[in-house]
């Protein structure tokens, strides 16, 4: 396993992503909600740059008493990585597709040390 320097902590604001290339693999390092995540920048659907898109919360249909539809809301606790080619959505924390867990982004470990962010490949 090799360690790849990404950038200084202050260079990756919350909500931002930095794409790095290590051992021929493009990796998106995401800073979201105070935590860091790293996934290969490759959507298993058609090969889109999955990490270059938006991050959006899960959309929820709110069903009330008696099965009545009440409305919709965002579940901010379940953020998604959204592939910008087709909109395939993956759980930010696991990289699994929101409708099919067998479809997942390749995940890498991230760490911070001495003011720097590192991804482990």
């Amino acid at each position, binding site marked *: 396993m090799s360690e790849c320097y990404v950038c200084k902590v202050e260079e990756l*604001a919350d*909500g*931002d*992503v*930095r*794409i790095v290339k290590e051992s021929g693999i493009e990796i998106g390092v995401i800073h*979201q909600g105070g935590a860091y995540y790293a996934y290969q*920048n*490759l959507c298993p659907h*058609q*090969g*889109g*740059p999955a990490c*270059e*898109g*938006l*991050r*959006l*919360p899960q959309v929820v249909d709110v069903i009330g008493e008696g099965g009545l539809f009440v409305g919709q809301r*965002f579940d901010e606790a379940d*953020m998604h990585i*959204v592939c*910008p*080619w*087709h*909109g395939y*959505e993956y759980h930010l924390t696991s990289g699994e597709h929101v409708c099919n867990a067998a479809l997942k982004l390749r995940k890498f470990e991230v760490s911070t040390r001495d003011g720097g962010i590192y991804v482990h490949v």
Partner: protein
Amino acid sequence: MTFTAGSHLFEPSRADFDSEQHLANARQQAFARNYQDFLIVDVDSHHYETEAFQEIANYIEDPVLRMEAKYQGMARGGITSIDGSYQEMTGRVTRYPMRRREATPPTIHRDITLMRRWMDSMGVDMACMFPTPMLNIATCPRAEVETALARAYNRWLCDNVLSEEPRLTSMLYLPFNEPEACLKMVEEFGDRKGVIGFMVTATHYKANNDNAYMSTYAALQERGLPLGFHAAYTWSDRSTALMNRFISVHALGFVWHNMVHMTNWIVNGMPERFPRLKTLWIESGLAWVPFLMQRLDNEFMMRSSDAPLLKRKPSDYMREMFFTSQPMEMVDNREALALTFKMMNAESQLLYSSDYPHWDMDLPSTIYDLPFLSEDGKRSILGGNAERLFKLTPAYAPWKLERRAAQAVAAQ
């Protein structure tokens, strides 16, 4: 919400959009699969003619309508418009909100530059291009406006795009609400450079077996130009009006309207009346084809008196028609897809299409990576079938020619 402009892109500071960067992974696929070895034709792709609408409006001959069009514009409406207007997935597919930021050189028409960029990235050599919002002028309640806009668009496209780039072609829009205007359109534009056929948007509420269209079909057959039916949706259809989500309207609408036209076309014996007229069914995916084949065949065996012009089963005629591939339903069941290909004689009748830049676009790899196709079959679907159907003179992407030349030098 995390959609903050500039904070989510490849470079945080990036204010522009770049098709080639957006499609960098597609370019890698093209290189890895050696697409330089064969022709790839994309038979259904789009541009956003709204960006050039002021240019197009100048081609409207009626001065009153021209002024109306220039004032009113062509953009789709907002969230409450009749067609919903959230197809763009609320920014999830980033090329929708970002595409206007892409810089292009002033010396070449912007549409040509943008088409070349995505085509080169995907490994597409030639493309048949269609408009985007102007596909929906089919539902304009003023038939004369549809005809005037269609003619203006066709003239503008021929003069400014097709005449300038041999890699670009189109099946021109037929204003199907005015049958006489359809014939005039074929007569006026049938010989223009880059015109490889004509196209009916499937949301026209006109029966294609109406006698009023026979002269147009005869003219197309005489010229050897295929007739395409391009799928579309409209939320104003009585059945789709019952649906509350875009996924429902799109999933059914894009198939339903072409199913209606296909059924009329076959039951009324059009393939027998115009045996040399080729038809192409565009952007309905593939899953509907075996469904309709089975459905029509089953009823035809009991009610052949309802379709007395047919000398064979409906599916026999469908197997001689042509279909574009996108959006190919890549279901978990690969056997279903393989059977669909077999039932429609895909290796000779299917034509690759991307539908780029729309949200459900398919890359050439969706065909190239199918394990049940032979190498010849893949190449036929990706380009050979289109080359034969449209009698194309191949025009290759510059990078393919360069790569071939480099390979030839290396081989020496």
